[in-house]
């Protein structure tokens, strides 16, 4: 049981460090506060942004926390890949530059899987292969409009 945990933990950990490097030009790692007693341990996150000192998740800014949490979710997904992903407004606290980084990562991954992403942010809309517009009609039912599909090179 402990072996199964560490097999998963090590794989997700490795993914997390790679994804953090890609999304932030910084370094990050997951660590247990007590590796010899994993089932009573907390999973901590430590990130060293480019040229800044190391910080624990709890003391980061709203946008930095959001990016790190997203990296953890992506790390788990990379461990258990699926043929499609659905993300509902994951870009909430991110500034324009960071939304662009996440959009770019999704674009690259979308060669191997389908990404269906709900977003109001311009950098996401600009990177998309296709955009589906949803509006509430006068009859109070949702309508899907403006489906723009760009040819993918």
């Amino acid at each position: 049981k402990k072996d199964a945990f560490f097999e998963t933990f090590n794989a997700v950990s490795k993914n997390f460090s790679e994804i953090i490097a890609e999304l932030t030009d910084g370094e990050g790692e997951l660590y247990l506060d007590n590796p010899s007693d994993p089932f009573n341990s907390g999973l901590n996150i430590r990130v060293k942004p480019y040229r800044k000192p190391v910080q624990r998740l709890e003391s980061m800014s709203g946008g930095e926390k959001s990016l790190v949490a997203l990296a953890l979710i992506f790390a788990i997904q990379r461990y258990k890949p699926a043929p499609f992903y659905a993300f509902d407004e994951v870009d909430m606290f991110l500034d324009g530059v960071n939304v662009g980084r996440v959009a770019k990562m999704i674009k690259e991954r979308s060669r191997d899987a389908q990404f269906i992403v709900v977003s109001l942010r311009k950098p996401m809309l600009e990177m998309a292969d296709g955009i589906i517009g949803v509006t509430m009609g006068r009859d109070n039912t949702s309508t899907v409009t403006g489906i723009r599909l760009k040819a993918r090179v």
Partner: protein
Amino acid sequence: MHIKRIILKNFKSFGKKVEIPFEKGFIVISGPNGSGKSNIIDSILFCLGLSSSSRVLRAEKLTDLVHSGNGRQVGEAEVTIIFDNSDGRIDIDEEEIRVTRKIRVTEKGYYSYYYLNGKSVNLSEIQRILEQAGIHSDAYNVIMQGDVTRITEMTPLQRRKIIDDIA
């Protein structure tokens, strides 16, 4: 293996039959607050039996998923997802895999039906073929509105439990 089309009938804010085509690749769904974007994500979880509780779909009970216009609820909600299976990832000899889920509301409660390429099946059969495609019922491939904030607010112990669950 990707979602080709989603067909919504009387599901949440989709009061009439609405068909949504999806390309492979990177698709963005956008629109004003309250327009129905999250409801489309809910329809995927509902149709594929991926959400174990109606609370995840923001419904107090499953019957709240049926479109209600002017306070009156129509009898039946139905969602169909059509997968492109041209890579043969699912061991059914079809280019397209159609998964349909229907719930019918009656005075006594509700009935829930699943169909696979038109044939009535159990949820377990749907889950078996979805597993082949890499779609697991713990739905880690779906991130719902607010999940990212929830993870940042978790305690380290709760976060470690996530690893326990997927191991």
